[in-house]
């Protein structure tokens, strides 16, 4: 029991210490250590998830010898454990699949630093998921920002430096808004721990005191996190940052870093303000509208893109739109769908990035889609992986994307005002998704390479790549076929949140 409940703490400390000792070392040492830690964290989180799922309980873990309103706390339930397990598994797979590319893209002297940053990024994500304290959340958001920027710029090209600086400044605006929101929250409640704020909030809601500041605070916190997770009008930094980084970084950033903030936002809605209160203040409506706009604009911009990695990055903008749309529906099914889509996208987008990497390698390092004619036949695994990811994103049955779309549609039925726009946009967006994913599929399987020398080449994949891509494909099918169990876990997690 003791050890089980200490798992969140152990995971956070383990990743932090790994980062510390892999900084000065040689690259290979850092690489092995980081992968090992990510693996251990995945196993531990999965164990925690299994146990909490079986008992159905949740617990808080005091960080020190002082109880709730005085000390600092972690909190874990099914929801947190599920997200932590999924995120660390995806991080592990991305690093494993992108290992060879990392060795090529990043100078050997910097490899140790790169892996230190990756460990620290995982540490901050875990802390964001598990934390029960608003100011701690701010501190780890800043770590997340720094390390996310660092793993983009680790591949040192003019393009990444420019992309990182835009990413950094946009993120800083977001964290500034979040910080002032937290401070205002402290000013009117006098607490920083989530349950204590919730108690104070319900008193304030009953007495009607500080109504205007409360509304402002929810808006500031939501906008701050929306900027950092690239919700539509704030997405401008994303394509260049995710498009230019090394494959593993792109996969981690698109797959899990964006979602870390959404998980935090959900925790804030549930555990700081209380759902009922949030709905009364109509913030979800704003998120709903921006989410719809993101679904449309992300796909439209992706269609125009010929660079495969930038296309995938724009697709992430659309998928973040889906997630915020689901949260904005303000029905339970909508939120469940959003959580399921977090998982879907977390396993699909890294798969697509890794597959794109293999396809690019098989076409002489060209990033242009039209240069990839026949690449799927030269690198079979990458082709299959891309097909799985693309079909899932379009929303074909048996793939995980279909399930999330189904639940989004179900969720929209609960709200008569939002039903029509949501359903229309779901259909439109599925068509748009098909319009940019299917041509790529046709290209990589049909056509013959422009460069005749490429025709007969057969790519040889490294063991780590095969393992990781295989695992991601497997996870995709698990989500697509065994979805009732996952949905049940999410529902239980949200119920105890």
């Amino acid at each position, binding site marked *: 029991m003791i050890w089980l*409940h200490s798992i969140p703490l152990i995971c956070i400390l383990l990743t932090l210490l790994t*980062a510390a*000792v892999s900084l000065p070392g040689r690259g290979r040492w850092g690489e092995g250590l980081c992968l090992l830690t990510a693996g251990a964290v995945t196993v531990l989180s999965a164990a925690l998830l299994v146990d909490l799922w079986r008992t159905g309980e949740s617990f808080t873990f005091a*960080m020190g010898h002082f109880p709730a309103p*005085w000390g600092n706390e972690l909190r874990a339930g099914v929801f947190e454990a599920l997200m932590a397990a999924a995120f660390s598994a995806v991080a592990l797979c991305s690093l494993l699949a992108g290992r060879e590319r990392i060795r090529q893209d990043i100078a050997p002297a910097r490899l140790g630093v790169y892996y230190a940053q990756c460990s*620290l990024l995982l540490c901050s994500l875990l802390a964001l998921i598990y934390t029960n304290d608003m100011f701690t959340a701010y501190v780890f958001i800043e770590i997340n920002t720094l390390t996310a920027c660092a793993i983009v710029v680790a591949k040192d090209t003019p393009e990444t430096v420019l992309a990182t600086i835009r990413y950094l400044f946009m993120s800083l605006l977001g964290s500034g808004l979040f910080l002032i929101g937290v401070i205002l929250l402290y*000013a009117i409640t006098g607490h920083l721990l989530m349950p204590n704020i919730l108690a104070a909030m319900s008193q304030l809601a009953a007495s009607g005191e500080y109504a205007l500041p409360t509304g402002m605070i929810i808006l500031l916190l939501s906008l701050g996190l929306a900027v950092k997770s690239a919700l539509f009008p704030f997405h401008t930094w994303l394509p260049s940052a995710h498009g230019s980084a090394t494959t593993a970084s792109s996969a981690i950033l698109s797959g899990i870093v964006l979602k870390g903030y959404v998980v935090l936002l959900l925790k804030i809605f549930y555990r700081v303000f209380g759902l009922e209160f949030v709905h009364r203040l109509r913030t979800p409506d704003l998120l709903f509208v921006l989410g719809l706009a993101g679904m449309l604009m992300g796909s439209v911009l992706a269609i125009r893109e010929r660079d495969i990695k930038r296309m995938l990055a724009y697709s992430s903008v659309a998928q973040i739109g889906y997630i915020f749309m689901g949260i904005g529906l303000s029905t339970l099914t909508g939120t469940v769908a959003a959580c399921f889509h977090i998982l879907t996208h977390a396993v699909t987008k890294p798969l697509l990035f890794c597959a794109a990497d293999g396809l690019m390698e098989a076409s002489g390092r060209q990033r242009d889609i039209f240069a990839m004619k026949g690449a799927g036949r030269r690198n079979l695994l990458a082709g299959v992986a891309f097909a799985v990811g693309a079909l899932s994103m379009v929303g074909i049955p048996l793939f995980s994307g279909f399930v999330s779309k189904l639940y989004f549609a179900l969720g929209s039925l609960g709200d008569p005002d939002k039903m029509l726009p949501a359903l229309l946009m779901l259909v439109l967006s599925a068509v748009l998704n098909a319009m940019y994913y299917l041509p790529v599929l046709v290209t990589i399987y049909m056509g013959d390479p422009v460069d005749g020398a490429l025709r007969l080449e057969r790519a040889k994949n490294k063991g780590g790549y095969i393992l990781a891509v295989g695992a991601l494909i497997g996870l995709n099918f698990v989500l697509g076929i065994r979805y009732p169990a996952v949905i049940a876990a999410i529902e239980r997690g949200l119920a105890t949140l």
Partner: protein
Amino acid sequence: MNRLNDGERGIFRRFQAGYGAIGLLVSGALAAVLLLTVSYLPGFGQADRPTENEVSQRYIAKGLEETGATNVVAAVILDYRAFDTLGESAVLFAALAAVILLLREEPAALARRMAERKPFEPDQGPILRITARVLIPWLLLFGAYLVLNGHLSPGGGFSGGAVTGAAMILHNLAFGPEQTRRFLSERIFFRLLVGALCFYGLAKGYVFFTGGNHLPGSIPLGQAGSIFSGGLIGPLNIAVGIVTACAVYGIFALFDRGGW
């Protein structure tokens, strides 16, 4: 830039102007809304505010008894809310690692840069050297005082570490990197940094682990007001001071020349 014609440039400029106008509008709206919010907040300087609740009162009333530190702020950051501070050291560490990633030069390039710079180095004039000789011991003493006395008086690991780091920067500017490297080589630097961070993580991890599982695991607090009081706060302040001083000096060295 030359390949753009005037028309395209005009479009870009107009786009920039539009962006600027929207940005100004957003900032203005933000200011107005925040001012409106402030006007609804409880009054400044008064005692009957929501922030004056059982939490802050308990820190004052029982802080010394529970943590052994007379400086309640130190008690809050290193004991009650120590997890934040662990995160804060991690931020410093992350920033240092990111700056290494960006600005570190290969050893050969570093040596070349130093060789180029040497004859023009204006930083090593006699006035600076004399000032540094006088000032550095005092700065080090002040830094050490802030760190070691952090649980008793204002100061603590961060400000003390920053002052110590400033002393090392001054030494470096006055006597040149070779002299500084004699007592702070790259290897020693990393050992200090990683050692302090690991000690901090493990010590606090032990406290979190025992605290979270309701196990006894407290460390003797010592005589209140003496330098050896405050249980773990003293050693933790030293570790934080080392991390801060190292990060400050390391970032300086990387900005200055790209290595140690």
